């Protein structure tokens, strides 16, 4: 299948007081139509910056794209004019943000916030837009949508607000939905509801999803494919099964080991990854994970590995261990 989105060699930096913070350093990945892809990584790994670069939402300055391209449905988004970009945002790509408590405008009715995009992108009349908005509200599972339409965000609970955000993001039937940590700010029970809703809508509408998260549990719920990011780079990609069953990068392995399981014996301790991520003002010359890696070798210190193919399927890991010359290492 043709790729709908392909990000290649994306570099995004921020100008800061101390110099240049290299938030994203050469990220490449593809999304196929109807596919759900997760981008996983800890805070500061560049996953949100990547997502916001696709939508060109980052303020510039201080941020700027150093190189790379973002091909979306045959066009390079980074080369579009501001005006052309406006017609992509909200229409072809919808976005959901992390904190539903702050991402809705407190002084505008929920209905108005949904119809805004409809009126702009689909040229609907006010009444047609209202009918569509009410339909969307019931689609995302908000009871009594007629009455809810004219309420303000403060009368909505956190979960309801996130549902409303989903309704806004999906209002113009976008081909791609970017969800930037959509469940991080929600209760666990609400998290499951929102994820189920997203999964359900994806099936029904055939929307592709990019899900940004640091929660591996969320990944296993929704996504087909996983991209693991560390220090502004993709360190491993593969299908959900591959990543969970046989993680190939030491960082991914560390992530999975540090996650609690239900079937874990009570006294078994979680194993955290020691150390902290590198300073992105001066990223290391070699592998960025080197200083925290239990398998670090001499080559890792000064040579940055490529994404290397692992096995026959599409799984790839950015680690010297998978280089043909590397000797077999006992896997932990």
């Amino acid at each position: 299948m043709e790729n709908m989105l392909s990000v290649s060699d994306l570099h995004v930096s921020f100008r800061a007081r101390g110099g240049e913070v290299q938030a994203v350093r050469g990220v490449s990945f593809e999304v196929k139509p109807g596919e759900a892809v997760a981008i996983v990584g800890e805070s500061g790994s560049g996953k949100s910056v990547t997502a916001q670069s696709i939508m060109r939402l980052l303020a510039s300055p201080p941020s700027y794209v150093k190189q790379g391209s973002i091909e979306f449905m045959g066009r390079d988004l980074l080369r579009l004019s501001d005006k052309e970009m406006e017609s992509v945002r909200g229409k072809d790509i919808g976005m959901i943000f992390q904190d539903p408590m702050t991402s809705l405008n407190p002084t505008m009715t929920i209905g108005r916030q949904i119809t805004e995009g409809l009126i702009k992108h689909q040229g609907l009349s006010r009444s047609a837009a209202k009918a569509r908005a009410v339909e969307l509200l019931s689609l995302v599972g908000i009871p009594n949508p007629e009455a809810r339409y004219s309420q303000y965000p403060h009368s909505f609970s956190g979960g309801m607000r996130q549902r409303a955000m989903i309704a806004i993001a999906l209002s113009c039937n976008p081909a791609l939905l970017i969800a930037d940590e959509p469940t991080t700010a929600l209760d666990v029970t609400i998290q499951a509801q929102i994820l189920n809703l997203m999964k359900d809508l994806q099936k029904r509408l055939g929307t592709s999803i990019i899900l940004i998260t640091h929660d591996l549990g969320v990944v296993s719920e929704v996504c087909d494919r996983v991209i693991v990011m560390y220090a502004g780079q993709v360190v491993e990609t593969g299908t959900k099964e591959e990543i969970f069953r046989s993680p190939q990068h030491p960082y991914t392995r560390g992530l999975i080991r540090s996650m609690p399981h239900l079937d874990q014996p009570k006294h078994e301790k979680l194993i955290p990854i020691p150390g902290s991520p590198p300073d992105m003002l001066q990223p290391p010359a070699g592998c960025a994970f080197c200083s925290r890696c239990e398998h670090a070798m001499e080559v890792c210190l000064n040579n940055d590995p490529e994404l290397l193919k692992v096995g026959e399927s599409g799984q790839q890991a950015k680690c010297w261990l998978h280089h043909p010359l590397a000797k077999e290492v006992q896997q932990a």
Partner: protein
Amino acid sequence: MARYFIGKFVSLLFSLFILATVTFFLMKAIPGDPFTAEKAVPPEILAKLNAFYGLDKPIWQQYITYLQNLLNFDLGMSMRSQYQTVSGIIADSFIYSLQLGLIAVVVSVIIGVALGLLAALYYRKWIDTAAMIVAVLGVSVPSFVVAAFIQEWIGNKLDLLNPAGLNGPADFIMPVIALSALPVAFIARLTRSSMLEVLTADFVKTAKSKGLRQQVIIIRHALRNGIMPVVTYLGPMTANVVTGSVIVEQIFGIPGLGPQFVTSVSNRDYTLIMGITLFYAVILMIARLLTDIAYAFIDPRIELTNRKEAA
């Protein structure tokens, strides 16, 4: 809602009562009386005057009488201007202060918000710097300097406008500039800081992700949320400007309420002092009430209630 307004009204009456009491006794504590003049008045006439205005009675009795008259909306006769009622004097001079003040308020809000908005949008660019220099000047240069300066230059040296008086629309220009300088600067700073905060808010990013135009995002989404501090300031500021600036009105020779108030104090014109003080209080409280209503209008989270707990 009705309960809210009744509550506000009751608190207005109570505040007025306190204010009337305190002012009444403070005023009596000032040495001298309305009839003290350079030229000594014969004692017989003085006694007659005192009897006419009830000043010969014990002070508590004067106080009770004053409150009784007040309940009948009677502010009494001026003690220095013959045959003139206090309400008449206030009405005659307030009309000038009101006109001038309202124009100044509108001008301040438009220019102040525009300057603040530009500064926020071009944060740390030269427009921001220029706007903030204007703002600092407006805050720190006193209005009498501004007034005297423009009067001298625009009125005298360049002879573009009449240096004083209020006889035509053009005569409003200079007093309005002098009155607006401070509010413009203040509003510009308030708008700038609040807009800088709002422009980085998540919901502005949401609006952008919907593909809205920059202008729409700023006007429809950001400004409405960023304008609140300006609304807060607008209440007391309006009351202040509308009731007349002593200095500006004096300099431009405008027969407004400001100079009246000052003269009334130096004349010990008891009834006029009381009248203007109470009038000022009423205007201030009305302005505050309007601010509250404006709040509820702008921000749907604010409800007009008397209850202590948040809705």
